Every structure is written in C-alpha cells, then in structure tokens.
C-alpha cells in the first residue's frame, strides 16, 4: 500500500520514510491546484520526467524527499475566500506574531506526530505530503475545512463561533479527512459520509487525549470545545460519549440533534445525507469500545479503528461494514476478549 524505509537503528517513534509522490497526484495538482502549488507540481513533473529519462529505477520519486521531518507551511488568506496569500511560517521557522498562525503550526505538528508515533504513518498520505494550512480565510468565516489538498481555517463570526485554530481536535479532524481520502476514501454522503465524519471526530479527539495524556475515563470526549462564542449555550459542537448533549441554543438551531443509536438515525437530504448528524452513532460505538478497554483510548481502540480505516473500509462502506471491520481488527490485534468488547459496542448502538 505504501512505501516506507525504516532504517536500522532508528527508534520506532522516529521512523525514516521514503517519499514517493504518485504521478496522478502531481498531475491533479498541476491541473487543479492553487497557483503556487500548480507551479510546484509542474516543476516537479518536469524534474520527474527528466529523472525518468535518465534513471528508470527512480520512477516517480519526488527528488526533494528529505525525509523524516514534517513540512508545514502556514499561509494567511488575508480574509479573502481564496487559497493564496502571504506565507507566514515554514517548517522550523520562528514564531509568528499572529497567534492563529502559531496555533495552526503547532496543531499540524501534534497531529503529524500522533500518526507518526502511534501508527508509523508519514503525514496524511503516508508518503510525506507537505502540510499546508491557510488561516484567516474569508470574512467572519464560520468554518474550517479540508479541500482535498490543504487545511483551511476561518476566524468565525465572533457571535456564534470563534478561534477554530485554537482547538486541537478541529485541526486533527481536518487532517484526518485527508488520511481517510488516501485510505478508505469514504464517499461523502449518507452512511459512508457519516463514517468519514466519524473517523475525523474519533482521531480528532484521540489526538487531543494523546496530547493531554487523558485516559478514556478522564477525557471530555468533546469535539469543538472552546469554539462556541461567548454567550452560546453549549459545551462544544459534538459529544462522542453522549451524542445529542453537546449544546442547546436557538442560535445553533436548538438542541444538538446527533443520534447515538440506529433507532434515531436521521434520514435527510441536507448535510450530504446527514453526515455530521449520523456520525454520532459510530462515534458512540468508538467511545463504548474505548471505555470497555479502559486506560488510554489510543492504546487499543485507536489502533483497531485505524486498522479498519486503512485496510478494510471502502468508499461505499456502511455502518455494518465498519462494525465487521473493527471487530475483525480487534480480534487480529488483541484477541477474542477484545473482539467481544468491540462487538458489544456496535450492538449497543444498534448497528449489529
């Protein structure tokens, strides 16, 4: 699936990677990327073609592979809805005067480290993809998103949301959309889309717990804590432990509508078939499994879900497929007792 060279003598927590950027991705960026990346992709394609002519064995190796380090770059979109702008901080450079730049830089680094140290994964694509993020996107822009290549953060309108970059699980959530895109590539609608969202919430909250060294019983299991503006009635945007209990405010459309059981599954055309709503069901299954294992959620439940995401799930996987995949992963990784715990979790949310 991926190519990785772990050199002799390297500690497992600092794997050394060989970076290969597939031709189709380079071509995609050259055709559809933002201006700066287009230029880079075209230049890389040109170098690649020359290398191919000279040294067949190199195939499409990206020549700049340096390799174990992360490669973060933070840009300021300067309150415009476009993905170009001022380059604010590159890898290893000193802090910016802009807190949002530094928060994005640190959050990307923590998420990169989480995937590298726990799963020996080298960046989003496991091939050393550079991590580019734009902050201050748009005016009063109430969102953070993954555009297929980069992370983008608005500032919020200050009335409902603020400080997206100040929330580690938001950053880890967006980066995990990238991981999913390069692995199971879950389609973004209905149950596959809700699984896609759930994976981002699960690994988003795991990165936060790992950073804080929170055990499953001590963690808050909240997504988006701290991004609701002052005066909003809510603890966060979603609760993985207790879907439907994160907020209750008329400005947010009333009470948190997330279901935690298949009996409450929401059929809707909005939100790509309720991907941010029905994700509550697999989210709760993850919490229940993690709570049954006890200790740190990234020790057992995390690797089980990661294995399912990277080896079993497919673009059109349904909740039942996710249940089967994680139950099998639990058995393979930790044996029959673990298998039963994961099975019980999916049963409790009504999926099996």
């Amino acid at each position, binding site marked *: 699936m991926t190519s990785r060279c772990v050199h002799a003598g390297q500690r497992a927590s600092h794997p050394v990677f060989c970076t290969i950027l597939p031709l189709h991705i380079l071509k995609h960026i050259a055709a559809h990327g933002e201006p700066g990346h287009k230029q880079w992709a075209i230049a890389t394609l040109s170098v690649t073609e020359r290398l191919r002519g000279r040294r067949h064995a190199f195939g499409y190796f990206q020549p700049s592979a340096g390799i174990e380090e992360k490669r973060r770059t933070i840009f300021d979109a300067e309150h415009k809805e476009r993905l170009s702008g001022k380059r604010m901080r590159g890898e290893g450079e000193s802090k910016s005067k802009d807190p949002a730049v530094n928060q994005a830089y640190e959050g990307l680094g923590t998420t990169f480290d989480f995937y590298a140290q726990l799963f020996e994964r080298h960046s989003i694509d496991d091939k050393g993809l550079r991590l580019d993020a734009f902050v201050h996107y748009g005016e009063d822009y109430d969102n953070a998103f993954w555009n297929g290549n980069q992370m983008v953060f608005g500032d919020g309108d200050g009335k409902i949301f603020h400080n997206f970059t100040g929330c580690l699980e938001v950053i880890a959530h967006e980066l995990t*959309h990238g991981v999913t895109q390069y692995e199971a590539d879950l389609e973004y609608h209905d149950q596959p889309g809700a699984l896609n*969202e759930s994976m981002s919430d699960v690994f988003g909250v795991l990165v936060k717990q790992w950073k804080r060294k929170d055990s499953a019983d001590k963690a808050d299991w909240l997504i988006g804590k701290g991004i609701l503006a002052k005066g909003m009635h809510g603890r966060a945007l979603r609760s993985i432990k207790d879907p439907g209990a994160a907020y209750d405010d*008329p400005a947010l459309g009333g009470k948190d509508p997330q279901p935690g059981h298949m009996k409450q599954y929401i059929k809707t055309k909005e939100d790509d078939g309720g991907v941010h709503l029905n994700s509550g069901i697999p989210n709760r299954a993850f919490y229940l499994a993690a709570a049954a294992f006890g200790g740190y959620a990234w020790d057992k439940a995390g690797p089980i879900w990661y294995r399912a995401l990277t080896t079993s799930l497919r673009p059109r996987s349904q909740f039942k497929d996710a249940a089967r995949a994680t139950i099998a992963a639990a058995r393979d990784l930790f044996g029959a007792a673990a298998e039963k715990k994961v099975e019980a979790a999916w049963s409790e949310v009504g999926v099996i």
Partner: protein
Amino acid sequence: MRISFSRTGGFAGIRLAAAFEPGVLSPAVEQDVRQLALHAHFFELPGELQSHSPGADRFSYQVSVEDGEHRHEVRISEAAAPPALRALLRLLTELAIQHARSAPAHH
C-alpha cells in the same frame, strides 16, 4: 421579496436557516439582496450547483428567492459557488445569523 435560506454542513454541522416573508426586510436590505442576486445571475442558475472535487466539511446551501416576476430555488455546494454568488450567500448568511440571534432564548 420572499427569501428562504438554509446552510448545512461545515465542520460544525449545524443548520442555519431563516425565512423572510415580504415586508420583513427593510427596502434597503432588499435592494442589496436584489443587486447581489442580479450580479450573481441567480435567477438563471441551474437548480443544483454541485462540486465533485475532493474535500470535506464544506457548506451546502439551499436558497429560494421570489422577487416580482423572478422566482428561483438553487441548491449550492460552497466549493462550486463562483465569487459573485458567494457575495450573495455571505449577505444571506449574515441575515440568517441576525435572525437566529434574535430568536427568543429558552434558558
């Protein structure tokens, strides 16, 4: 002018919606909406503007506007919206947030 607006999706996944019956918005605001709608060729848009590019957590909009003889409804993926349409969506979003903030609290 009658407007129905909803925004779903985004990282938060929170639905923002508002409906404005004729006479609710001030004439000045109606004129702003009218100008932006004309500039965006809103009434000539197809019923669906969808994006097939990869990515996640973008907004989805459903916008319906009735203004004199003009009447149109469009479902829009944020990633597929050209700049002129985004300007209209920004104004409608702002109006919907004001509307939501003015809703009576039940706490």
